[in-house]
């Protein structure tokens, strides 16, 4: 009985997010049909959203375990810096249209591999060394940022091969940016891993009670390291998208995403204590936040992009309060 209520509650957070998303979407469409419902607006949303969305997915993998990953953006930057340096070193200057394609593909693979390594480093720190996740990733954030700074001397890397820009620029059928497809694909894969595989189920179980997981024959170390590895790979993917869009790499790009990712994940119904959450919730949170900020922009309420911060922060507080009252009601009903 109480669990059915619990289920409804989890779903209700998703319902709230969906309602907010569509409500705001419809509101904007009615208020500003001319500006909001334009292809350009839709496209710009689809272009802005993926890098943040993928960082949020990366954060989610750590938080399902009851941990946190403060190094995601640093991983994204480090991996794209190393990849950029590789591409800059091996690309052919003044080359024809597709001559550098091979270098670009190699560069992307390198970025993903660096992301994986960074993730494994975090995972080992948490699982094997036993450092609390917050500390481990705070230190590794500093280490990854430090490596990036040493590699670039703090400068931004430019002059990447033209082909690299294709990731950020290409569209499907000339309308849908390829990067939103990448984001949705990443979300689908994350969903399948979390809800349809034994590995994903083990992540939830370890997040719920690590000791009981050990006593049930789960290899906690493996599960934790894999989760942080996935988090690292996703982070480097976000880094690739970010560098491709700006055609440059720098150690302090997108730092704001670090904390915003936590915000989106919590908004999406993931419990900071671990063991609870769904990809659907996180995706809806990311979409809602995007529609909210684009809408504000169009309504000219957003003179600077920072009004977004204000609204997002308030949004999070409101959702926290709604959950709180839902919980209290439930508790009162139970006793």
């Amino acid at each position, binding site marked *: 009985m109480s669990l059915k209520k619990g289920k409804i509650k989890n779903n209700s957070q998703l319902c709230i997010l969906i309602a907010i998303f569509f409500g705001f979407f419809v509101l904007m469409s009615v208020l500003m049909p001319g500006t909001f419902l334009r292809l350009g607006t839709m496209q710009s949303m689809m272009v802005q959203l993926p890098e943040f969305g993928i960082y949020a997915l990366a954060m989610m993998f750590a938080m399902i375990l009851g941990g946190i990953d403060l190094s995601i953006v640093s991983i994204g930057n480090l991996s794209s810096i190393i990849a950029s340096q590789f591409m800059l070193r091996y690309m052919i200057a003044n080359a024809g249209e597709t001559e550098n394609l091979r270098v670009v593909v190699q560069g992307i693979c390198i970025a993903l591999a660096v992301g994986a390594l960074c993730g494994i480093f975090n995972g080992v720190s948490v699982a094997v060394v036993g450092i609390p996740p917050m500390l481990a990733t705070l230190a590794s954030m500093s280490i990854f940022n430090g490596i990036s700074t040493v590699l670039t001397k703090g400068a931004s890397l430019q002059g990447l091969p033209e082909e690299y820009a294709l990731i950020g620029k290409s569209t499907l059928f000339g309308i849908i940016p390829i990067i939103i497809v990448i984001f949705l694909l990443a979300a689908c894969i994350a969903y399948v891993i979390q809800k349809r595989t034994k590995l994903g189920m083990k992540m*939830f179980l370890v997040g719920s009670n690590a000791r009981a997981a050990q006593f049930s024959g789960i290899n906690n170390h493996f599960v934790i390291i894999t989760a942080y590895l996935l988090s690292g790979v996703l982070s480097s993917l976000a880094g690739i998208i970010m560098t491709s869009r700006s055609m440059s790499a720098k150690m302090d790009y997108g730092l704001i995403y670090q904390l915003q990712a936590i915000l989106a994940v919590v908004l999406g119904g993931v419990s900071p204590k671990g063991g609870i959450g769904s990809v659907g919730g996180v995706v809806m949170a990311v979409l809602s936040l995007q529609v909210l900020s684009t809408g504000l922009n169009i309504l000219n309420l957003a003179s600077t992009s920072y009004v977004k911060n204000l609204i997002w922060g308030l949004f999070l507080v409101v959702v926290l309060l709604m959950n709180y009252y839902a919980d209290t009601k439930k508790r009162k009903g139970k006793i």
Partner: protein
Amino acid sequence: MNTDSSFIKLTNIGKSFAGVVALKGIDLEIRPGKIYCLMGENGCGKSTLIKIISGVYAPDQGKIELDGKLVKHMTPKEAIKNGIEVIYQDFSVFPNLTVAENISVNTEITQKRKAVNWKRIYRQAQLALDKLGITLPLDETVERLSVANRQLIAISRAIAHDARLLIMDEPTTALTKREVDALFAVVKRLNASGISIIFVSHKLDEVMQLSQEIVIMRNGEKVADGSISDFTKEDIIYHMTGRRLDSTSYGGPQSAGAKTTLEVKHITQKGGFTDVSFGIKECEIVGITGLLGSGRTALANALFGIHKIDSGEILLEGKKVKLGSVRSAVSNGIAYVPEDRLTEGLFLSQPIGKNIAVTVLDKISNRIGMLKASSIKALALQWIETLHIKTSSDELLAHSLSGGNQQKVVIAKWLAIEPKVLILNGPTVGVDIGAKTDIIEMVKSLARQGMSIILVSDDVSEIMMCCNRILLMRSGRITEEILTDHITEPELYAKIRAQEV
């Protein structure tokens, strides 16, 4: 102080939560200088009653009198002011603070201190320790102390200012026998100085040993009370459960040709146990008992691969195996129901289904590790039915179950791997007597079907009811092997106690 007049008198106390009656018509009288024992199954209203006495809950009806004066509205602060102190199971100590601070903190709060005078704090703490007649290092942080010492700190704190009634909620759960004796000495000393004690416990032997008066509750009502000398053990169990306990022993189908499933030879683990050898056959239930700290849990953990053994060998059906991890134990068909259900056995925030399926994820997933929700559900429903787990759905969180049903979920998850050897460590601790009978019957029937079962327990009657053989452990060694048929319950009890150095 006149011992005839009561310190607290409760008359016709009733309390309900959202329509569910937790207490009804409770009359209770606490007289100065008496030791009371409050008994009852889980959920019988014991803790509600304690909370009413200590002012945490206000009763819906009935009256409370303190020293013959009617108290209209009792609050926790008022209770403390009147000398009513509760020591909870977790002792409410601060692991990061020193012993002195932990002991003085209550007094400081009642005296509404604003500034901290370290000299005063140490003086107060020393005074409280002197009252109990014990010594503890005042400037040590509590996290470095043993559980027993933490409890002494909680008691010292409670009596640091003038306590008149001390309520102790299951104070002996985590103590060794010797520590229990030390605790009882302290309690008797306090009692002699005129402090009343309410002692909540499940352990019959302790109750018989310590208390003068007994109060038994069932379903929110007081069903019996009186002087302890008027009750036998059987009476107490009868009043608590409302039925007589079936105390037939297992006996078990012992044929001479039964195969030996598990055999250990001279296994040793540093700090855990030394030179342990024994074997167990099909259909056999072997009990391992001994005092807390005798190495019984270390042995069970080692057989399940949680901590490695340093020397010796383990044979499974005649073949030598290495148990380096839980997974290797599980793949060899060894299952383990751990001592602490909540922290080691269950995923409270997860559905019952996942709690059961956790051990067989490899079996019910396909080659690339994909799972079907339907296969988890089928598995869960099967076990919910087999073990009579009381729940309306397999999707309910483990959190929502009662202690006994939670334990059944833990057992189900291990039966799902169809183990050859099942190790149960204190399977009925904190489980009410109804569910206890269920679990004991289940264990026996599993053995009849051929499973080898190792039952680690300090509950003598449980061991006597279940086991064919009993291994007695002491300071890490097996000191004696006894056939259940050759010993009686009191004799076994005496043997365990005789191990006390």
